[in-house]
């Protein structure tokens, strides 16, 4: 392997990694917000919204991100909704991740015994206060491991961003392979940079899981 070559193009990868993480983080935030909304709507059986959430979740879970991005990026402008690549990336990732986050939070919500909210109600708390102070904080802690797993999943999914011409890590690697034929070096850097991004999140996920098990929620 050619170390000199790798050092030379390191800054390109750094830039691309920042882009990957930035848009990834934006997408994950959108996903968390959408997921929270869907989960609460479904948990509280809000009419109409609940059905909309169900349809959305099925559509989002059963289609690939790449096709979702193509539809948003190339399809939607034809009916007057245009996006630029980075907005499209974040929105697409949010669309995909929202359903996964919703499932994570929903299972957290369902794991909380109804008597917990009854005891909160018996103290005179209003239903929204019960949700806000009692149910959601517990549900979110319980869903934390699933949440972390989703974050890793979504960060990995960002690798298709290059298909809508975002200059992310994949794009950079492919570009360099095409230009200089230094395939092994370019791919080695690609792997290293993904490890730099994903390993800490993965370790953090394990830590969260262990801490939660230790905390013994619900008992």
């Amino acid at each position: 392997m050619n170390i000199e070559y790798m050092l030379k193009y390191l800054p390109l990868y750094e830039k691309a990694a920042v882009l990957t993480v930035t848009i990834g983080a934006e997408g994950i935030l959108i996903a968390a917000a959408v997921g929270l909304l869907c989960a609460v709507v479904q948990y509280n059986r809000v009419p109409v919204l609940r059905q909309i959430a169900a349809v959305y979740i099925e559509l989002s879970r059963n289609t690939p991100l790449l096709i979702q991005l193509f539809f948003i990026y190339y399809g939607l402008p034809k009916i007057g909704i245009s996006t630029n690549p980075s907005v499209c990336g974040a929105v697409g990732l949010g669309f995909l991740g929202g359903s996964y986050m919703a499932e994570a939070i929903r299972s957290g919500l369902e794991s909380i015994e109804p008597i917990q909210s009854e005891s909160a109600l018996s103290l005179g708390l209003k239903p929204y206060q019960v949700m806000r102070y009692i149910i959601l904080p517990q549900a979110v802690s319980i869903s934390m491991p699933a949440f972390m797993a989703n974050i890793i999943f979504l960060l990995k999914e960002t690798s298709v961003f290059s298909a809508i011409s975002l200059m992310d890590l994949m794009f950079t690697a492919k570009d360099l392979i095409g230009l200089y034929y230094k395939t092994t070096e370019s791919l080695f850097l690609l792997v290293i940079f993904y490890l730099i991004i994903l390993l800490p999140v993965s370790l953090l996920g394990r830590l969260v899981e262990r801490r939660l098990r230790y905390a013994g929620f619900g008992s």
Partner: protein
Amino acid sequence: MPDLGLEVLFKGKNMLRLLGGLWAALEISLISVLLSIPLGILLGIIMVRKELVLRVITRTYFEFIRIMPQLVLLFIVFFDSTKLFGINLSGELSSVIVFTLWGTAEMGDLVRGAITSIPKHQYESSLALGLNNAQTYFYVIIPQTVRRLLPLSVNLITRMIKTTSLVLLIGVVEVTKVAQQIIEANRTSSPNAAFGVYLTVFMMYFLTCWPLSILASRLEKKWG
């Protein structure tokens, strides 16, 4: 009614071509699934065994495959196989290799999870009833493991199918590539084709994966 570019689909054999492309993608995932399931079961069984060396090797393999985006793995196998091994792999073959490697890791994890989730006293109480080791596995442990495993494996198949969409990016001609060709060919006659055609591809994937998701959640409810 705005022009949604749906008319392209009814031109010539466009719809058939798209379906053919979908089949090309499904074929790759199907072959990979068929290879991954036995290999994954093997991996899972190895992973619960206590031999240190085997465990370190399988664990490293498993962690690396799981943490890397599948597209990175595709790139490595497709672009670097010539250099590393001196062979030239087609996009299709690279895809099958990568998805099998990945599917094996995921399946192995599911098998490991299913085996370790059977409580220890299930073994003990079977042995206490006088069943021998083989009978314990055959009548008690394996049926329970399979029940836990089946819904999860169906889910894995849906994930595989969705992931096959990536093979477009290493130049395999599948449904999305066909879609691009159709949109390109009709660019002047139907300028809005991108909407209709990508929507169709979206729905095609949905209609393929949705029934499997429903099946998985049914199985889970039945045996959960």
